[in-house]
Structure formats: C-alpha cells, structure tokens
C-alpha cells in the first residue's frame, strides 16, 4: 500500500493507463506543466509532449478535439479545469459526445474521459468555480458520471473510466485534492456502477457521493455516539447507478437520508428518493429525507457559504428526524 493524496492518485491513475495503452492521450489547459491542481504532474516529463498537450483556454476546442480523437480510435482524457466551465462546452458534452454513438446507429464509440475539479467544500470558490455539477450531466442519456470520494477511488475509478468504451465525466472534488489515503500497490481499477458500503448499520441509510460520503461517515460517528447505527453508502457513480445497493440498504434499515452537495432542486438526490418511493415504498418506515446545498447560487464569505453547504450536523439532524417519525 502506498499513501497518496487525491491529486497524486489522479496523476498516478493517468500514468498507469498511459503506460498500459498508448492510445491514451491527455489534453487541457496547463496540463503539460502539471495543471493548476497538480493532477497531471510528471506526465509530460514521463510520456512526452506527443501524449500530453497544452491547449488554449478554449473548452469547446478541448471537448471537441477529444471527441474527434476518440472517433479516430484514441482514448483521450481532457481536463476541464473547473466543472463550472462545462457551461462553455456543453454543446460538445451534451449534444455531441453523449449522442454521437446513438445518432449514427452505433457507427462510432466514444471512449473518452472529461475530468476536472468540482464542488464547494467550503473553499470560497463561489458561484462560478465552486459548484457541484453532476446533475447537469445526469439528465443526459449517454454520459457516465463518476465522483470519487477519496484517493483510492480517484485512482481506481479514473482508471476504469479510461478503459470504458463510453464517455465518462469524472468529477474530482477540489476540497479533497490534498486528502491522503492508502492506495493499493500495483494495478488498481474499480468497476463503474458499484457503490461502496462505507459503514454497516441497521437503523438508517445515509447515501452520499464524493465529499458527502465523508460527511455521511462523520454524521454516522456522531449518530453512533447517540446510539444510532447508520448504514453509509458511497455511490461512487451516478450513471451507472447501483440502485440495487440502495434498495438493499433501505430494506435493512427502513429509513433513508440522501446527502448531496449541490442545490436540492432537481438534484440527484431526488432520483434516489424517487427510486425509494417507486421500488421500496413498503420497506420505508418514514418519509425519505434529503440534505442538500441551498437553492441559491454559491456565496463566498465563509459564514454565508457554511449557511448553505451541507454539514455532518445537518445530516445528523435529518437522520434523527427520520428516526423520530411516527
């Protein structure tokens, strides 16, 4: 086992896949010099400038070039520096990359990865650099969505995304780039579409993703101190969604709290709540509770940000309310 930070895990996964498959190429702003978040450190030095390409600040050119290269048989990994910037290339992501296989009757595959920094995490990045944006992609058939909750997942899920023959958006959480964790030695790949049971408990199910998986675990510690055993599920990927794991946990606990960092209005948590209502209604002993970011653009001042960001305390309160439902 080696201890890596989340950012080192991203770079290590890229290196692992570039060494394994010479069709894997990296492009994006500043990537040849390691990138602003140092997630591509060392790649250009190791694999050379033919494999690691700096681009202009041109997200449409980045996403579009990745798509064209994928059509030609390469397996490009494009960095979109902040997930918020998907807004500038959303045509390529949602209209082209997601649909080209379908619209051409299966004439092409789209083995590419778009990855970059996502989320708030209380860093003060504000409304245009701090959003959690998995939801934008989740309403578009044809996109796979990965959100790693720690270094080992960042490594293994990115490797799997690169090996996948479909387009995958990897949302790395910028507030976790410095977090350290043991990562298995040797080749490390985690399957897409398999949630991780982060903690086993029989009283209430807490479902999280990316940074909220850790928030759920912190809440579970606090709940344990109060005599409540929480089952914590880290979804890892929204598409494909491990609905089976969610439903199985609800069957054990009968109570569900879904925790998402983005605004709640039509957030992915609503899809989980609908899943519970449609397919586990008779297992539920209480209404589903959702904890989400505030339904406002993200403010910057720390006191305002804390007001709308999710926290372990809010998860604990929601879990207690669900348990107190009669």
């Amino acid at each position, binding site marked *: 086992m080696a201890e890596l930070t989340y950012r080192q895990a991203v770079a290590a996964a890229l290196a692992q896949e570039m060494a394994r498959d010479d069709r894997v190429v990296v492009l994006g702003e500043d990537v040849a010099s390691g990138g602003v978040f140092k997630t591509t450190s060392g790649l250009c030095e190791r694999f050379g400038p033919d494999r690691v390409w700096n681009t202009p600040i041109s997200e449409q050119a980045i996403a579009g070039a990745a798509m064209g290269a994928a059509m030609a048989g390469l397996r490009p990994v494009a960095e979109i520096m902040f997930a918020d910037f998907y807004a500038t290339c959303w045509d390529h992501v949602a209209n082209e990359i997601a649909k080209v296989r379908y619209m*051409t009757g299966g004439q092409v595959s789209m083995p590419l990865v778009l990855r970059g920094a996502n989320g708030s995490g209380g860093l003060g990045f504000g409304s245009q650099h701090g959003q959690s944006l998995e939801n934008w992609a989740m309403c578009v058939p044809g996109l796979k969505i990965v959100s790693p909750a720690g270094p080992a997942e960042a490594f293994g899920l990115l490797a799997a995304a690169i090996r996948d023959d479909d387009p995958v958006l990897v949302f790395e959480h910028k507030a976790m780039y410095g977090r350290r964790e043991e990562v298995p030695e040797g080749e490390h790949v985690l399957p897409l579409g398999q949630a991780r049971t982060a903690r086993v408990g029989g009283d209430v199910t807490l479902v999280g993703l990316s940074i909220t998986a850790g928030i759920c675990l912190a809440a579970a510690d606090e709940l344990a101190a109060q005599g409540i055993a929480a089952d914590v599920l880290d979804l890892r990927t929204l598409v494909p969604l491990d609905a089976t794991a969610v439903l199985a946990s609800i069957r054990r606990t009968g109570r569900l709290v879904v925790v998402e960092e983005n605004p709640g209005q039509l957030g992915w948590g609503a899809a989980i709540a609908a899943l519970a209502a449609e397919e586990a209604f008779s297992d539920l002993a209480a209404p589903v509770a959702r904890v989400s970011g505030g339904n406002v653009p993200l403010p910057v001042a720390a006191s305002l940000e804390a007001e709308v960001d999710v926290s372990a305390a809010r998860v604990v309160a929601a879990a207690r309310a669900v348990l107190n439902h009669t």
Partner: protein
Amino acid sequence: MDVPDGLELYTRMCFLRYFEERVDTLYRQGLIHGPAHLGLGQEAIAVGAASVLRPGDCSLGTYRGHAHALARGAPPDAVLAELLGREGGICAGKGGSMHITSIEHGYYGSYAIVGAHLPIACGLAWAAKIRLTEAVTVCFFGDGTTNIGAFHEAVNLAAVWRLPVVFVCENNWYMEYTPIADVIPVALPAADRAAAYGLDRVVVDGNDVTAVRRVIGDAVTAARRGQGPSLVEAQTYRLKGHSAADGGAYRPAEEVARWRERDPLLHARAALTAAGADEAALDEIDSSTKSDVAELARQVLDRPAPEPSGAWADVWSDGSWQWRN
C-alpha cells in the same frame, strides 16, 4: 478540362442534384419525417473536394450534409432510407437528415449545431498527427458558422497545433434567412478572418468544380505534407431555401436569377462542351441519373419502417441503454 475526368465529375454532380431534387419532392409529399436541408446549387464543392480525398481521409459536414456523405461514397439507398425513416437507414433511423454519417466511407458526420464539428475535425486531424498517418480532415460549414465561438476556437487550435485539417466555408451568402453581409463586419466571412489565425486568404469559385478541386487539392496536399491547416472560402449559392420548408422569398429575384446562370452543372456543361464533349452524352447522363434516382426512391419507399425496438439500442457501447441496475 480533361473530358473523361470532367464527365466523371459532372456525373457525380448530377447525381447529387437529382437526389436532392427527389428529396425536395418527397418532402413536399410529406414523406420525409423531420426537416431536410438541401445542397442544391452547392454540388461542385462536395464533388470537387471529395475527388481529392483518399480512403482514410476524413470529412465532416453540417445539417446540409446529404451531398457530402454521398460524395464520399455513402450508399444512396441507406441515405435515402434514413431520410424516409425506412429500414436500412444509414443511422438506423436515429439520426435523420441532419446527422447523416458514414464512418466506413470517411464521412465523420453531419452536425446540426452550427460550428460544433470544427473542433471535432481538429480532433480527427490531431489523431492523425499523433499517429503520424498522412490522413487529412476536411471540414465543411456555412458562412453563418464564422460568427460562432467554436469556429474561432477550432481554427485557432488547428493553427497553433499545425493540424492537417482543411476548413472549407461554403459561403452561400445567407445565414438561414439573413444576408451574411448584415451580420459580419468584413466583406468575406471566412477569407477576411483568416489573417487573425496566421492563415492565407483563400477564395475559390465554389460553383466551378475544377477550381474547387484545384484549390482544395492544394490545401489537402499542404496538410498531408505537414504544412498545417487552411481556411478556404468557396463562394456558392443555394438554389432553394434554407430548408425544404423555406421558399427563400427573402432573396431578390434578380439575385436568384443571376446565380441560376452560374449553376455549377451549367458551368461544368459549358466547360465540357468547350473541351469537345458531346452534348448528347451530357443529356444522356442527366436523363439516366434522373431515372436511377427515381427508381432508388421507389425501392426505398417499399421498405418497412425500422423495428420500434431499435430505439433502445446503441446508447452504450455494449448496445444497451440502461443507466442503472
């Protein structure tokens, strides 16, 4: 003009002309499901460019893409079946007129979001550069595209990375219903923007198939030799409206009449007869092509609709559509 060679180009242009006229008729009969944007009048660009491309080269077009797909060799029955929503459509009924694609023939798709395919063309050319193949990518788009961000991002990237790509602006002087002159601050939409990207100002008569072939041929050769991208403005005119639903009434009658005299087929006929080709042989090409297309339409109209279950195929590479277990 070399006569045998010219007759070949003329035959190909005739096919595109009569194919599109048949599509227009089928549209009016209510048999085309969805919109159809015709390339009538712009045949010389598709045929001239395709004539300099090799197997392995890539081309991409817009929603006005039937001609570009056919010019690369896409099977006409499969293209027509796609337009008519019949079995055997080239995109299995899931793309329609605006997304005709034939990867097998090097035609990497028709794109319905203006400008979207220019960055994609960069990616195809980038892959060729990385792999050291000699493949060249040619990307066709309209004059209106020169006002969208993706155009500028793509041409800039191609120039900075010295990609083997040829951007061909089919300037038909109208962005949808609006004269292009009303929405650009320069005289020529593509040619007058080239200098901003360090590219030469290249203009060609897009209704003269031999001129198109020469100019795009030079650009393709330069790209193949590693000399980087080109931006070519091919000036042309669409003989019909923006789409088959548009009568094009916003265009002055005398302007339409003037361009009708410069019809690329008439242009080629004149050049061929001047070079000694037999008028009767040209007439025979016209009439046999027309009847071939009519017969093609009859055959495709006899086909059944695609099986409804096909709507669920081809979302993911394993053929499935499910987003959850």
